[in-house]
């Protein structure tokens, strides 16, 4: 086997600021071989050592013990290290923190300039990389003005200009919307196919992992499973034990298998068409009529928020970030706001508690006592802010106090809460957000990423908002962190809080939201329940939505089933795999 990367028994520990070795080993005797020209994914929960592994491969860190060889080169001295780094391009998670050049083409040139590539070859390489990633038209733009998706493409272009043989993606798609993510992955997959570049992608997204040839599962600093996606996902218990998830389509297959008392093996999951075949086979095999899923019809609550004819422009009318938005929010519901990056979602939610005041139109909050508050009235703003809590994307970046307890209490003190009440309310908020009491005395900067997110959430919950607005609350979390976050959100709703959630993840929006509102270029283009919205795929795509993976897969199964059983009557698709499996089996059995 022609090896691109060989890692053998590598042990690595981080050192703290005093230069002491931390007791927990980031990598604990990890070994793996990556075939040249392959496309593989490294999966694992947060803190499992995935990123450390990637840094060891690119010799950005040196192993304490064990051996690494990249394309047969062992990093024994400085020159060898540079040789490896030159062959190994690295794209990081945060698009902003890897752009060195102010202008797009200057940034692309940074790598080859460091290598001393002379003109005119340098110019050729830069132009070719820009064309390949579709950024050539933007070459003279200021890099800071690019969108998140374009910035990540820029990072790829910068990598490509170094003519690498290996491309490492360290959660590079975590901050992108589904459309940008797809474009990004298509570029990566083209590179792998056309130029034979070995791709190593670290990701929390199981659907992304399912596109690879090979998956390595890393837990506690060593590889616990490796194999094709079909092999890995044919071991659902091990996958879940590792803190990972099954892709939605495979999850549906397992639900169908359970209903038909069958098992699923590796070949059944080989590729997309075999997955559909397996699902159809399993659906037709079931004998027992499963119970119909009953959704408790939620009573629509009273109107709690009303947005009327809201328009907003950042550049005095040249371009509208929001245009004539009308929207009602009902007490006790979960409302999802979806749409591409830059469609005005953040501007919209910034209006909800008066952080941004309407230029035209109105945002009104109706209170239980029959009075109402409007963000157009300055005297109402303070009251609105204490009733509408806003949690921005990556809220952990707003922590600043000496202790977590003080940080959570910050909003409460600003709102003028009574002293004796504060500590009780802080503890309660921390509990709801899923923080244990012993972290309250710690500095917020000592916490893990997930805990920081929860501390920031508690800092908003402490004000007991009637309406809680969350911008991508699960962004960047691992599968378990995502699940826990949504459990917390559901619990909050059950306790009576109205939730408005901005999300890129259509599967989650379909599953958790009562209603979905879709924005496109500042306008409201669609609104309804998940089944209404995704019923017509063509229309959904016109709205700029990507289909939930489950709906996409399920519609393929439905097509096959309709061919197989003419006259079958199929219910509209359901957002949970279990429910959907039962619905399909019921339809098959009743015809």
């Amino acid at each position, binding site marked *: 086997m022609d090896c691109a990367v060989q890692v053998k028994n590598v042990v690595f520990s981080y050192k703290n600021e005093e230069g002491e070795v931390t007791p927990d080993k980031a990598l604990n005797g990890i070994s793996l071989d990556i075939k040249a020209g392959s496309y593989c994914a490294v999966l694992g929960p947060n803190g499992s050592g995935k990123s450390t592994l990637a840094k060891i491969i690119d010799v950005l860190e040196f192993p304490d013990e064990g051996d690494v060889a990249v394309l047969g080169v062992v990093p024994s001295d400085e020159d060898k290290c540079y040789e490896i780094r030159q062959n190994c391009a690295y794209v990081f998670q945060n698009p902003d923190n890897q752009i060195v050049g*102010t202008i797009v083409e200057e940034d692309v040139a940074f790598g080859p300039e460091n290598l001393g590539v002379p003109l005119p070859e340098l110019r050729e390489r830069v132009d070719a990389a820009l064309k390949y990633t579709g950024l050539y038209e933007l070459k003279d733009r200021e890099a800071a003005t690019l969108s998140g998706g374009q910035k990540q493409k820029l990072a790829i272009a910068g990598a490509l200009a170094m003519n690498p043989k290996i491309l490492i993606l360290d959660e590079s798609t975590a901050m992108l919307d589904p459309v940008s993510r797809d474009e990004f992955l298509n570029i990566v997959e083209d590179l792998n196919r056309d130029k034979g570049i070995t791709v190593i992608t670290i990701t929390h997204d199981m659907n992304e992992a399912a596109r690879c040839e090979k998956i390595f599962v890393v837990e506690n600093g060593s590889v616990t499973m490796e194999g094709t996606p079909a092999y890995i996902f044919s071991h659902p218990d091990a996958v879940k034990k590792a803190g990972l998830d099954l892709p939605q389509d495979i999850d549906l297959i397992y639900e169908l298998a359970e209903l038909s008392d069958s098992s699923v093996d590796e070949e059944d999951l080989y590729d997309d068409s075999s997955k559909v075949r397996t699902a159809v086979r399993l659906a037709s095999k079931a004998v027992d009529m499963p119970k119909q899923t009953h959704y408790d019809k939620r009573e629509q609550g009273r109107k709690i928020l009303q947005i009327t004819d809201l328009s907003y422009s950042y550049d005095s009318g040249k371009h509208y970030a929001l245009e004539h938005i009308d929207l009602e929010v009902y007490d006790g519901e979960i409302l999802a706001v979806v749409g591409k990056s830059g469609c005005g979602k953040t501007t919209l939610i910034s209006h909800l508690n008066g952080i941004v005041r309407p230029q035209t139109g109105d945002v009104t909050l109706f209170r239980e006592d029959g009075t109402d508050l409007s963000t157009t009235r300055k005297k109402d703003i303070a009251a609105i802010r204490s009733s509408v809590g806003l949690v921005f994307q990556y809220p952990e970046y707003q922590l600043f106090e000496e202790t977590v307890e003080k940080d959570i209490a910050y909003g409460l003190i600003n709102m003028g809460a009574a002293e004796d009440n504060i500590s009780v309310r802080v503890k309660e908020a921390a509990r709801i957000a899923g923080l244990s009491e012993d972290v309250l005395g710690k500095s917020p900067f000592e916490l893990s990423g997930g805990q920081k997110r929860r501390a920031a959430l508690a800092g908003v919950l402490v004000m007991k908002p009637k309406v809680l607005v969350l911008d991508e609350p699960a962004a960047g979390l691992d599968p378990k962190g995502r699940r826990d976050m949504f459990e917390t959100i559901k619990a909050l709703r059950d306790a009576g809080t109205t939730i408005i959630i901005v999300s890129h993840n259509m599967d989650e929006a379909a599953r958790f939201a009562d209603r979905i509102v879709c924005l496109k270029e500042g306008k409201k283009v669609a609104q309804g329940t998940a089944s209404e919205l995704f019923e017509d795929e063509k229309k959904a795509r016109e709205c700029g939505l990507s289909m939930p993976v489950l709906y996409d897969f399920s519609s393929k199964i439905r097509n096959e089933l309709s061919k197989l059983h003419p006259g079958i009557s199929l219910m509209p698709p359901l957002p949970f795999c279990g429910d959907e499996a039962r619905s399909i089996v019921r339809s098959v059995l009743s015809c």
Partner: protein
Amino acid sequence: MLSDISLGRYVDTGSVLHRTDPRLKVILYMVYLISVFIVNSPPALLVLFVLTVIQLVTAKVPLDVMWSTLKPVLPLALFIFVINVFTIKQGEVLWSWRFLTVTDVGTTRAILMALRIIFLILCTSVLLTLTTTPLKIADALESLLSPLKVLHVPVHEASMMMSIALRFIPTLIEETEKIMKAQESRGANYDTGSFINRLKGYVAVLIPLFVSSFKRAEDLAVAMDARCYKGGKNRTKLNPLKITKTDVAVFILFLAGAAVLIATEVYFAR
């Protein structure tokens, strides 16, 4: 909003000044910087005004950009005006009330001082920041100061640091706005309430901003390592600096302008 401020921002209008060699622009800038401080007489000020307008027109700077560049400086200009108008006691008294006196010399001086600040900002923006990318400014400084390398002055490193600092200004402004909004949602107050309250509001913004800047710095250092950055040695350049005939023409014309300015000043100062 913070992002409305154009101070230190690059605006591409594709003018001849944008294409001029940055080294020449840096030298021109130095010349004008000194000229602005030499100017003392109203006729010379007029010449300076005309020259500045010519610069603005040559650089094709849109009016709204110009205005947002100037806006943040106006309070400072006003402050300088007020200080000067009330402290200079020479000349004929024009107006007085209790301990405040305004004289004719004081007024002229005050206007002159305030205008100097405005011209200073205008020529800095037009000759440098608005028409030259930070990376080019850094390139120019690196090239102009390269003789100092013999004395082991880390010229390349300094210019790299400067260009990175400039590159991150818009990013950090965006970040500041984000944090301000987030803290405002938690009841932080920046512009009403007591001084202490406002100060507290800003602390809640600055600490997270520092923390994330350090994180960004660390990330960027790793990213630069990954892209094989190893200092200035053997580095090539995508856009090496080259002086063209047009550059020389622009340089001579603007230099002539400065010469006229100084000549006027010397003539009328007598």
